[in-house]
């Protein structure tokens, strides 16, 4: 199993009159095809850690390697490129662009990457959306969809450039239990069927109980990092 993310004593301190330490000395490695849940009480730094791993934020100290590449020396544009090509994000709120159709939203990262032709992009986007059960909704606007559907569009968008890692920040946080279950199943299938690594921040214990690896944070520190024997599908 190749190592995708390697974090070495990551620390993130918010500069303020009284500096706040969000993440403290976190070291971990993430490999291929892992399904990881980051758990912890509110304010324990789960999301902050996820943003660090997702290159949305820079650590105050510590080193982070993505795909073997040290990111601390990269400038913002290079980080953006890396985000575009090797990482996919799903947030608690779907964060789709409201003016664009579902299909265009999913095409967006591909167009930014600029590798595929227009027809290849829309084909791939449509394929992803159909796989996620949204075949009939390609031309709708995000606000015409239900919360669960929107979150699935967000997952499709995260997969647009075929990243190795999908990072999810409370992906089910604002969904009802049925939709949550659907989204969970989709995330699990990303790992089992597509071979992605999924790192999800959640405080939904039901979900946390069914992943392969659980990282528990308290006050920005990893207090437990346990790999679970494969859960039944």
């Amino acid at each position, binding site marked *: 199993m190749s190592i995708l993310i390697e974090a070495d004593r990551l620390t993130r301190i918010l500069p303020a009159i009284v500096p706040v330490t969000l993440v403290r000395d976190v070291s971990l490695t993430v490999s291929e095809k892992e399904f990881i849940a980051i758990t912890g009480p509110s304010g324990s730094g789960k999301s902050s850690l996820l943003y660090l791993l997702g290159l949305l934020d820079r650590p105050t100290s510590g080193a982070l390697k993505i795909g073997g590449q040290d990111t601390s020396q990269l400038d*913002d544009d290079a980080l953006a490129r890396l985000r575009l090509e090797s990482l996919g994000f799903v947030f608690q709120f779907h964060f789709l*662009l409201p003016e664009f159709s579902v299909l265009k939203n999913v095409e967006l990262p591909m167009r930014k990457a600029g590798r595929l032709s227009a027809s290849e992009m829309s084909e791939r986007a449509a394929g992803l959306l159909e796989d996620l059960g949204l075949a009939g909704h390609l031309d709708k606007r995000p606000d015409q969809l239900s919360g669960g559907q929107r979150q699935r569009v967000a997952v499709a968008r995260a997969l647009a450039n075929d990243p190795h890692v999908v990072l999810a920040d409370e992906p089910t946080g604002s969904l009802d239990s049925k939709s949550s279950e659907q989204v969970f199943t989709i995330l699990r299938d990303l790992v089992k069927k597509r071979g992605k690594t999924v790192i999800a921040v959640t405080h939904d214990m039901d979900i946390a109980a069914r992943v392969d690896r659980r990282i528990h944070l308290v006050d920005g520190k990893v207090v437990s990092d346990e790999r679970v024997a494969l859960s039944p599908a």
Partner: protein
Amino acid sequence: MRLILELALTHIAGRGRQTIVAILGVALGVGFSIAMAALMQGTEKDFIAQLVDTMPHVQISDERRTPRRQPAEDLFPAAQFEGLRPKEDRRGILNPAAAFASLRAWVPGRMAQSLRTQGVVRYAGRDIGVSIIGIEPEIEASVSSVAGDFVQGSFDALQAGGNNIVVGDTLAQRLGASMGTTIQLVSPTGQSRGFKIVGQFHTGSNARDESETYVLLKNAQILSERQNAINDIRLRLDDPEAAPRVARQAEAELGYKAVPWQEANESLLEALVVRNIVMYTVVGAILLVAGFGIYNIISTITHEKARDIAILKSLGFTQSNMRRLFLIEGLALGFAGSVVGWLIGFLLCFTLSQVEFKISGGAVGREITRLPLFWSPWHYAIASAFALVSSGVAGYLPARHAAQLNPVDIIRGAA
């Protein structure tokens, strides 16, 4: 790049009412400044045109700028003279035919020579002091604006048999004379002759309408007992702006005082400069206000779009992408605004040009005038260039701010 452009246009299109307000804000600024500039420049041009039209562009008279050096001073340059009695000059332009011919060789435009003298008109027991201007009718018509102001008759009628005269209509009224009346003209030398009125003009300028009379050049010369004398050469140039240059050259060549119209109306033209400063201040203020409007709207959009910025950045869009996105939005609004502004400006100008108003001029009756508007593509170009620059700046500053936003802060804020 096309993707950024599409994003920008979608953003703009997605916010119908705000976009319309933004575009209208720019458009009104552009439109009003175009109309304002057209009106101000139009009235200025109209004013100058009237000035240029009614006056000779260069007037050469038999005066000199500096007193002539006396022969004694030339003979004894080292001596200083007191109480020298100056040599009496022959009045008028010396050797007028040669002077006229030499001017004709190089002056770009038309010219007329005349003899101007003072006199008294006597009719029905009234004496009225007038200027007697001796002219050559066929040339005069091409130089003087009076040719176009005839109420009755024309300059050409002067050439009919007998002694004929053309007078202003106010003068005719004061005398109680009309077409065909023979009036008595008395010159400073005491000559007196009867002239038949064959034409009346109305220039709109009271001073001229009640004191100018035109007779044939030779009649004027006879009246003033100055055979072949000329004391006034008037030039009408193809390009009125060339007047100062032509005047300088004519003065150098002939030695006589040559006054361009700009010099003759210096104080009026100075007033115009002040007016122009006022105009550009007002137009600039309008555009500045429009610029602030653009800034306000773009920065509002940027503010509201903070979430989109976070999303796009999390997807892998760079800071410069974001800057460009909002810069393009600003420019697009500025551009759309200036196009609409052109239309508004054009319609405003058109409407203003249709406004008619009447100026009642005392006894003369009424003249209907329209607002003079000057149409120049420069007004359009400058107004929209200003709109584009200010919308560019208005887009760029919030854009720079937007690009620097940390997506995490926005995502945290939204959660």
